[in-house]
Every structure is written in structure tokens, then in C-alpha cells.
């Protein structure tokens, strides 16, 4: 059938299985929005308050499902407002397709109104991007964008569609949704070598990241852990990939990771790293990181092998397929001494646990735990609250903890929570802080308009707590620009947006407020005041190693 480019954009999105898009209209996408009007029964468009919110919503949609999230923005500022959202998705390997409008081909390169070189701008933060020069290429370009976004290591892809291409007509015939490039196991001989290395180990440790959920290799990982008697830890991106309560799981590793987990990894003689990249927040000082360990590293992205930490056995391949073979090749083993050592680390962690009564961040998270169902998606923003949530919340299903790991984007949570709610149909939760919430709270408007059932737990300490923590510890308490002397009344603010809200100043009130919030079919904010000098512990000082871990501050 003969369609305009704008119709082809919308038809191609539908053809690719997309049913919800997030976006914001403008002059250079007005034709696409006209097509969205025409096809509104088949493709739901969610209007956000700001393009950044739309990008984070598409990201949250993708994180919660594994399917590519789609965002549409106009040229110029619309496109540049996507940049933080695209970069967030890129750093956390989240599949996303961003469609931007641009000025007519004839005007490209003339600095015309709202013209921007968005393919140039997003070059380093996309897997790939496209400028569509002819309407005949449009449908295939969008298909290719979807294929790339979900192939290998997922990530964002941008398609820039000039206005004349949206107006031009050509023939269009629907095609089936793109299939990702077929996953492949690592080379057999490498897997066998790695298995020999694991068989020789006395203190094996399995460390996984976000790649585990992307590959869907949870079962294989647990089978390996069982067979070789290894404890399991994860990077922050791995949180929720396997059940928090699994007996082998020591929790999150790294700068603010669980003591037993970080210590076990550091003392291991064989680290099996799966879909993780040994980020500096994970290793601390790399020259001192796990010196006694051989590192077996499996990743679908070959460039991650030996990029940050030299791998003795680096294998490029799909986790699931590679682990299936590795589990066969390793010998069953038992490591009673290693288990005992780990039990000691765990009791040390227990001793240092913050057991203060009252409305402490940890207790607030524990109360929230009582309200989480196994399908509840929990998004966070970035800062102390994010770490408390990652450390304390309990998950039973993968893709239920949504947090900006690589880029560390404050303001990520509102959009992400909205996207995750729409993707799953579940009552969603946002754990945020007053600093992060202040960045993109405009998306409350979206949540109200769309009637998004969303519990917003705002840990309000009146400071930029994470930076303040560093200033306390390393900058002689020079609280430079981290005290928010704002007079914002978050309850009134939420109400002004049309949301419900209340204040919680004790654990009991918080518990009751959460019950009310989960009953309400719309956004419900709980303003929960916490102390400004709460710390995220343990903490690896910047540039320090696991031996320098701070587990207690003051008395």
C-alpha cells in the first residue's frame, strides 16, 4: 500500500510489536503525530511533561520487559532533551528505539529553526544511529533499528527522520517483527579451559551483572553455583535478577555492596564473571582488586573481556548457551572451608548491621518490603536512597529493580517507574530522594493524567545526601551546595499535580501510608523525613580497595 513516511513510521512501529510509545510532539514530527492520531487504536502514545521523562519511560518499559522501549521527539530541543535518557539506556545496555524529527533535507546543514545534528550528538551514546535520506529506506531502517537494539548486547538506536521524508509517499508492506542476531555460545575449547580452571579452584565466586537478565540465564547460573558449591554476588545492575533470598546469594558487591559479598569476591581464587563489566564502582582500586583470583569472564560483548580487569579466561558468547555447556564440563565440588569462611564474613556483616529502631532508611526499606509483591516493579533515582533500596529490598523476579547504574542519572526514576508500570500493568514503586525527585517531578503530571498506579516513597533529608556523605568523610564537612534550603511542601506539591500524598514520620505511619498508597489507583506520594546525616554503609572509599572498606562511622 502507498503511505506517507509518517504513516510508515507508525505502521513499522506497530509491525515491530510496539504497542506503547512515549513522546512529545513538535513542528518537525507533526506529521508523525497525525499518523499516531490515525492509528491510536493500535498504538498508544503517552504524552510526558518533558522529552527526558519520555526517554526514561521508554527505558523503564524496556527494563521491565526486555522489549525495546520507543520514544518520539521533535527536532532541536526535543531531540537534545532525549540525550540523557539515551545515554542512561546506553550505559545500562537497555534496548531502545528513539525516533526524532528533523528539518527538511533541503534545509539540513543551514542552521535552520530547531535544526540539530542529533545523529552527531548521539554517536557516542547509541549502538548505532540513522539519518533517513529517502522514504524508500524508512521502513527497513526502523526494522534494522529494532534488530540492532535487541541483538547481542542490547542498547539504544536512534532514527532521525527529516520532515520531507515524513511527507513523501512510497509503497509499504508489513513484515514480521525483527529477530535478534542468533545468540552463540563461546568457543568449546575456551569453555573447557575455563571449566578446568574452575575445577582447580578452592574458593570460587560467581559474580553477575545486568547481562544475566538480558540473556535469561538465571537457571543456568544457579545450576553452576550448585554444582561447584560457589557463593553468588552481583553488581547493582544484577539486583533482582535472581531471588534476593536465595541461600547462595550474598547480595550486591562493590562500593556500597554487602560486606560478605565484597569480601568473598576479593578473597576468591576464581571469579566467574557473567554479563558484568568490572566497573570502577565494583572493583575500587583495580591494581589491588582480588589479586589472588583467576578471572573467568563471559560476556556477549567481546570488548568487555580484559577491558577493566585482565581475564585469565575471557569468552565472548551468550551467557545462557555458554553456561549450559560450562555446567556440563565442570566437576561437582564441595568447599566446606570456603563456606565456613563466608559464614564468618556474614556474621561480621550481621555484627555491623544498622539495627537502630525508628524511621531509619533501612527500616523504611524493610517496611516497604512487606508491601512488595513478587511482580511489583521498583524504580529508583540516584543517590543514597538508591543504595539503601539496592541493599535492602527483596526481589523474587528478574526485571523488577530498575535503577540507573552506569550513568547514575538523578531524575531517572519518575519516567522509569511510569514506563515500568505501563509495561507490566503492576502497581509500581518509585523510591526517590528529595534531590533526585526535584529533577524530574514534572512527570507527576503524566502519572496523574494517565492514572498510573504508582507509590512514590520520597526519602526526604533536605540534603544531597550522597555528596554530603563524601563531604563528611573526605572534605572536612565542607557542605558545599549540598544543603537544600528549599521550602518545598511535597505533599501540597503532589496534590497540586492532582496526586494523593501524605507525610510519614514514624515506621507505623509509613506502614499504614503504604497500605493506603497501594490501594489507590493513581500516583500516591509519601513524604518520609529521614536524618540528614544517615550514611550508606559499608563504603569503599574512592580509589580504595576492599581492605579499606568503611563498615562503621562514629560510635
Amino acid at each position, binding site marked *: 500500500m502507498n503511505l506517507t513516511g509518517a504513516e510508515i513510521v507508525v505502521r513499522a512501529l506497530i509491525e515491530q510489536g510496539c504497542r506503547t510509545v512515549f513522546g512529545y510532539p513538535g513542528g518537525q514530527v507533526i506529521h508523525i503525530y497525525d499518523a499516531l492520531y490515525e492509528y491510536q487504536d493500535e498504538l498508544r502514545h503517552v504524552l510526558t511533561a518533558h522529552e527526558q521523562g519520555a526517554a526514561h519511560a521508554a527505558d523503564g518499559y524496556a527494563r521491565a520487559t526486555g522489549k525495546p522501549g520507543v520514544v518520539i521527539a521533535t527536532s532541536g530541543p526535543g531531540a537534545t532533551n532525549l540525550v540523557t535518557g539515551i545515554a542512561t539506556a546506553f550505559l545500562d545496555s537497555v534496548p531502545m528505539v528513539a525516533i526524532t524529527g528533523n528539518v527538511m533535507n533541503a534545509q539540513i546543514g543551514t542552521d535552520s529553526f530547531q535544526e540539530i545534528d542529533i545523529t552527531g550528538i548521539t554517536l557516542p551514546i547509541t549502538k*548505532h544511529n540513522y539519518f533517513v535520506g529517502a522514504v524508500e529506506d524508512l521502513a527497513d531502517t526502523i526494522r534494522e533499528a529494532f534488530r540492532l537494539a535487541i541483538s547481542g548486547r542490547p542498547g539504544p538506536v536512534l532514527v532521525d527522520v527529516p520532515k520531507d521524508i515524513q511527507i513523501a509517499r512510497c509503497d509499504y508492506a508489513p513484515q514480521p517483527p525483527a529477530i535478534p542476531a542468533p545468540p552463540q555460545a563461546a568457543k568449546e575449547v575456551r569453555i573447557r579451559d575455563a571449566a578446568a580452571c574452575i575445577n582447580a579452584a578452592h574458593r570460587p565466586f560467581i559474580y553477575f551483572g545486568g547481562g544475566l537478565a538480558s540473556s535469561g540465564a538465571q537457571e543456568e547460573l544457579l545450576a553452576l553455583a550448585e554444582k561447584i558449591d560457589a557463593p553468588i554476588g552481583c553488581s547493582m545492575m544484577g539486583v533482582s535478577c535472581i531471588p534476593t533470598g536465595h541461600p547462595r546469594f550474598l547480595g550486591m558487591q562493590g562500593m556500597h555492596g554487602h560486606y560478605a559479598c565484597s569480601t568473598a569476591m576479593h578473597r576468591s581464587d576464581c571469579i566467574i564473571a557473567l554479563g558484568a563489566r568490572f566497573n570502577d564502582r565494583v572493583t575500587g582500586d583495580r591494581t589491588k582488586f582480588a589479586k589472588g583470583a583467576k578471572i573467568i569472564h563471559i560476556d556477549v560483548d567481546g570488548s568487555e573481556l580484559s577491558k577493566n580487569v585482565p581475564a585469565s579466561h575471557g569468552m565472548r558468547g551468550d551467557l545462557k548457551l555458554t553456561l549450559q555447556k560450562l555446567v556440563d564440563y565442570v566437576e561437582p565440588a564441595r568447599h566446606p572451608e570456603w563456606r565456613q569462611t563466608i559464614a564468618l564474613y556474614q556474621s561480621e556483616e550481621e555484627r555491623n548491621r544498622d539495627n537502630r529502631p525508628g524511621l531509619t532508611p533501612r527500616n523504611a526499606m524493610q517496611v516497604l518490603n512487606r508491601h512488595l509483591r513478587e511482580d511489583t516493579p521498583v524504580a529508583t533515582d540516584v543517590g543514597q536512597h538508591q543504595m539503601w533500596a539496592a541493599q535492602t529490598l527483596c526481589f523474587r523476579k528478574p526485571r523488577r529493580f530498575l535503577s540507573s547504574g552506569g550513568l547514575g542519572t538523578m531524575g531517572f526514576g519518575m519516567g522509569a517507574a511510569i514506563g515500568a508500570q505501563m509495561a507490566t500493568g503492576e502497581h509500581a514503586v518509585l523510591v526517590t530522594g528529595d534531590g533526585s525527585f526535584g529533577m524530574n517531578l514534572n512527570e507527576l503530571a503524566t502519572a496523574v493524567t494517565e492514572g498510573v498506579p504508582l507509590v512514590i516513597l520520597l526519602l526526604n533529608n533536605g540534603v544531597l545526601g550522597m555528596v554530603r556523605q563524601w563531604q563528611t568523610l573526605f572534605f572536612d564537612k565542607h557542605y558545599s551546595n549540598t544543603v537544600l534550603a528549599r521550602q518545598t511542601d511535597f505533599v501540597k506539591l503532589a496534590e497540586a499535580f492532582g496526586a494523593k500524598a501524605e507525610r510519614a514520620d514514624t515506621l507505623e505511619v509509613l506502614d499504614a501510608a503504604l497500605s493506603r498508597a497501594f490501594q489507590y489507583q493513581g500516583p500516591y506520594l509519601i513524604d518520609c523525613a529521614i536524618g540528614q546525616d544517615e550514611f550508606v554503609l559499608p563504603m569503599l572509599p574512592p580509589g580504595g580497595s576492599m581492605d579499606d572498606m568503611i563498615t562503621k562511622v562514629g560510635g
Partner: protein
Amino acid sequence: MDKRYTVAVLVRNQFGVLNRVTSMFRRRQFNIDNLTVSETESPDYSRITVQFAGERVTKQQLVDQLYKLPDVCSIRELDNENAVSFELLLIKLKNDPASRGDIRAAADAFEAKTVDYTRDSIVLRVTADSRRIDDFIDLMRDYEILEICRTGVVSLERGADTIRKVTNL
């Protein structure tokens, strides 16, 4: 220990591909010694040849990062053992009666050809491997060099194998 590496990259012949490749080098701070781009036997592909000095892990990282670019079709690491490599030099020297004879002698030794000759200047052309071109330039520093331009290396594998036999998975 730093070693000099030559990597040939077959890329899709599309607008902006060179920018994608060099942008990756820039943001990951790969220090490139020289880079050439040219047409190939097929209008669908261009060929980029990159030379750089570094450690083996750096080279591996560069190759792995290149493979992640969707426009990269194939990569071949080339060295003196498995490939022939040449570079072209144009060098403009002051035409001085006192040095003219010495320049001519050196030019003969390097099989340099005189491609421009005026009262005040001589332009020589040398085709050789990069090391030999370095040596020739070094020799010419004894005289007055007015201008230098060199192409960067082009390199082809010896024998019947071609870069298109290695494909990007």
C-alpha cells in the same frame, strides 16, 4: 612493550562511517599514528587502514571496539610477515646548488623520483614502507625541508586470501 600494529578494516561505504570510526578512537583515547581510507573492489565497501603503537591488550580492545560498530564488516591484522605495506611520501626541499648533488644521491638510494623541479625547490616522491620513509625524511633533515606530505599506510595481505573472507559475526 609498545609495538606498532597495522589493522585493515572493511566498512560499509556509507556517509559518515569514517566519523563513526574516528569518533570511537577519540572517545576511547586510542592514539592513532596514521589512517587511510579508500575505495575498494566493490562500491559497497570502503577500506580503512589504521596504524598505531601500543600494547597488545590495547590493540585487542581497539579491534573489539571496532567490531561493535555495525558499519564494520571485517577486520584483518596485518604485519610484515603476512602483508605488503606501502606509503607514499611527497617532500619539498629547497633547491640549493650546494646540496643538490647530495639530495640526488640520497634520492637514488631510496628510489625517489623527482616530480617537480624549479629554481628554488625540488619535490621528491618516495614509495616505501613507513620505516624507510621515516629514514628518508631523517636523512633530508640535513637539508632545508620546505614541506612534507605522506599518505599513511596502505596494506594488502600476501597470497590469495582477502579481508572479505573474515566476516563480522
